[in-house]
């Protein structure tokens, strides 16, 4: 604690305390010789749980911090370390943090928020382009100072507290934390989901903008982020889209850089217009339908037919538009709109196209994408089901999305999620052409979810033979199908290899012969040779398979060369 009136480093007289941070205190000081005021931020070593991390972050970058010059950043002129604290000497920023402004005045005018957003983008872009780059990690209204009387001035906000950007490393999983403390932390800041990058800052900025423009704190009840125009219909749809893109759970779906975000912020009105155009299209469609249905009521079958063919035409046009659209988000929206055309919610085409898009976009089926398709299908389930085969096909394809592409790295989750959809496909229709495949997937998925429990209870005997048959069937029909995507084929080969490596003795006990197992090995080898991987991801998979089937052969030979009871050799594996 600095004593008021004391002299720090022979230069700075401490005038008064001006604020508390989570782990620090800020003082107003004066350099008496130069007659200039500064702020000193004191980070106390005993007040910080993980001081080493803070210190490391600070000391390493001290020189760098001193070099930072940006109109929206306070300049740091000195960093002094003494026995029990670290003192950062910087510009004294007069004004009020935006958190206080929100408290006092509530939601802020949109134009102002967009102006601030651009400045924040600019300063983040500046930090991100330093060498080495600085990730701020803690964007929130409390860290943005609004200078008094600064309206209209480009420098009217200042990002504070960035000297401690490193304080917020990945959170420790074992520790319970409270939303109130961690602010707007992005999913990847909780660890286990990849690095924090510039996209982490974009996420926090998105939540900050949301809070500023709606007045609703996303970390307070009801904790849900709603589209901003549901809270205030007069807000811009362009801004709504921008915020939604910033706060996607998956960093890959957010803006990839501050420049990209800045561009959209500068053009948010254009995004508005694009949206308005689509709305107009929708409205026309609606009016048309109203007229048509009125016609139908008035008199006849002919009108109904016209209405129908009109809806058909509109549907095809929209599907067409979606296909040619190149922007991913717009494409998704267009397909969604297809399902909103009256009488067309039951048509499978848009759903299947969306599923294809999710596959092809980046070969990863994300949680957001899963939300989108599930919401659509669930909302329209009843009408889709009027075409049982179509419904079965949609369910089957969603099942495959989860099975082969889902972003969750936990295989069990992927399989359990897909089994539900395969089962839906099975119960939807008896005539669906892929019914057999759906059953195979469902059984294999169920096998995996049950096997861990059953192994422990030692009641797993007899489960392996049917499992082997199912894997063999998948292998025969899908792995050799040249129309199937390479990811699907390779994933399947990998699954088969895994099974052979993991369960050879179990297969043996259940009566699968060595010849049958070896035959599967050969098939895998043959199939994998026929695929020439075209991406890094599939190349990696392919390499993995090659090393796996070599191992599989060895495991099979070992399993059959010994006469010991199977469970003693590889019990429980």
């Amino acid at each position: 604690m600095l004593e008021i009136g004391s002299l720090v480093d022979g230069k700075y007289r401490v005038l008064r305390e001006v604020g508390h941070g989570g782990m620090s205190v800020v003082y107003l000081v004066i350099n008496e010789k130069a007659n200039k005021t500064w702020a000193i931020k004191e980070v106390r070593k005993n007040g910080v749980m993980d001081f080493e991390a803070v210190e490391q972050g600070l000391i390493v970058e001290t020189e760098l911090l001193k070099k930072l010059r940006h109109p929206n950043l306070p300049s740091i002129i000195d960093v002094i370390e003494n026995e029990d604290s670290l003192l950062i000497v910087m510009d004294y920023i007069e004004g009020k943090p935006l958190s206080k402004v929100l408290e006092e005045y509530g939601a802020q005018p949109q134009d102002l928020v967009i102006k601030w957003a651009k400045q924040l983008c600019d300063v983040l872009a500046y930090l991100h382009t330093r060498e080495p780059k600085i990730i701020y990690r803690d964007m929130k209204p409390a860290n943005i100072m609004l200078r008094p009387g600064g309206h209209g001035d480009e420098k009217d906000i200042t990002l504070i507290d960035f000297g401690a950007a490193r304080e917020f490393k990945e959170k420790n999983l074992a520790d319970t934390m409270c939303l109130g403390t961690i602010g707007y932390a992005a999913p990847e800041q909780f660890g286990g989901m990849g690095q924090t990058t510039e996209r982490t800052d974009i996420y926090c900025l998105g939540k900050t903008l949301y809070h500023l423009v709606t007045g609703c704190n996303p970390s307070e009840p009801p904790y849900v982020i709603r589209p901003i125009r549901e809270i205030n219909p007069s807000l811009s749809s362009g801004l709504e889209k921008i915020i939604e893109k910033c706060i996607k759970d998956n960093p890959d779906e957010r803006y990839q850089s501050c420049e990209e975000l800045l561009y959209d912020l500068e053009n948010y009105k254009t995004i508005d217009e694009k949206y308005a155009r689509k709305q107009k299209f929708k409205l026309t469609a609606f009016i048309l339908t109203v007229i048509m249905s009125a016609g139908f009521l008035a008199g006849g079958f002919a009108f109904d037919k016209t209405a129908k063919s009109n809806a058909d035409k509109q549907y095809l046009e929209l599907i067409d538009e979606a296909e040619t659209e190149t922007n991913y988000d717009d494409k998704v929206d267009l397909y969604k709109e297809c399902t909103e055309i009256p009488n067309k919610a039951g048509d499978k085409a848009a759903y299947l196209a969306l599923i294809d898009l999710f596959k092809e976009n980046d070969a990863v089926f994300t949680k957001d994408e899963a939300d989108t398709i599930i919401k659509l299908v669930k909302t329209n389930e009843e009408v889709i089901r009027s075409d049982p085969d179509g419904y079965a096909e949609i369910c089957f394809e969603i099942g495959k999305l989860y099975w082969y592409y889902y972003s969750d790295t936990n295989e069990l989750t992927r399989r359990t999620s897909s089994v539900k959809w395969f089962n839906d496909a099975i119960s939807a229709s008896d005539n669906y052409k892929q019914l057999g495949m759906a059953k195979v997937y469902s059984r294999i998925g169920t096998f995996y979810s049950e096997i861990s429990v059953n192994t422990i209870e030692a009641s797993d005997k007899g489960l392996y033979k049917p499992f082997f048959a199912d894997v063999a069937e998948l292998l025969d029909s899908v792995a050799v199908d040249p129309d199937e995507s390479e990811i699907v084929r390779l994933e399947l080969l990998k699954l088969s290899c895994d099974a052979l490596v993991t369960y050879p003795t179990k297969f043996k006990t259940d009566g699968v012969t060595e010849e049958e197992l070896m035959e599967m090995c050969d098939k895998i080898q043959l199939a994998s040779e026929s695929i020439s991987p075209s991406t890094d991801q599939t190349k990696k998979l392919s390499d993995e398979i090659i090393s796996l089937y070599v191992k599989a052969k060895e495991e099979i030979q070992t399993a059959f060369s010994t006469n010991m009871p199977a469970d003693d050799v590889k019990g429980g594996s």
Partner: protein
Amino acid sequence: MEFIVSASTDIGLVKSTNQDSLNVRVYSTSIGKVVFAVLCDGMGGLESGEIASASVINAFCKWADFRLPQLIAAGFGDQDIKREWTDIAVDMNSKLKAHGAMRGINLGTTLTAILLTSERYYVINVGDSRTYEIADRAEVLTQDQTVVAMEVRNGIITEEQAAVDPRRSVLLQCIGASETVVPDLFFGQTVQNAVYMLCSDGFRHEITPEEIYGSFCPGNMLSAEQMKQNELYLIELNKQRSERDNISVITIRTY
């Protein structure tokens, strides 16, 4: 109605301090025996988690000692309890926040508490500690105030995804680190021959509801000694399964 009570807490395998606090007491009153139990799971560096949990326990125990007799004498309803307990939670939130701000630290605590009369139970909850009613099965009376539990309720993720989600220990609110605290309150009829159980999250992550029922079903909770033994057994089971957190539990047997 009669009550037998028991409580146990364990520092666990990893942590250097036990930041859980708990208290359970039985009062003889004009409306018969009454039990008040409260359990808090503190968080924050060094000793601050203990300060947070202990001070909330103290505030509630003070209420039970001084205010509860007045309420019993005057007669009270669900809304009276809701108002008074919410006031204490909100008040403690401001006090702990001020304490933290003064020292430049973050601290906070969960809260679950129950008041049992022979007629009715009254439960308050903030965070992810829980209160259970165990009669013919283990039923959770409280609702976890966590990010993942909310997402499960909203259909955004499944129970299975929640169990492995990196955000699983993020609380929506806690006493001491939230801008505003809005506790959940639950009321119902007290069941005779049942067990009411309060626990910190460390007690329930590694063991199943079936295991909880197996040890804590009323038929296996016939004396204070037996109850204590069963509590210790489940705490050990948690540790065998590598639970890293502090582990605390209170049980109350009605008969």
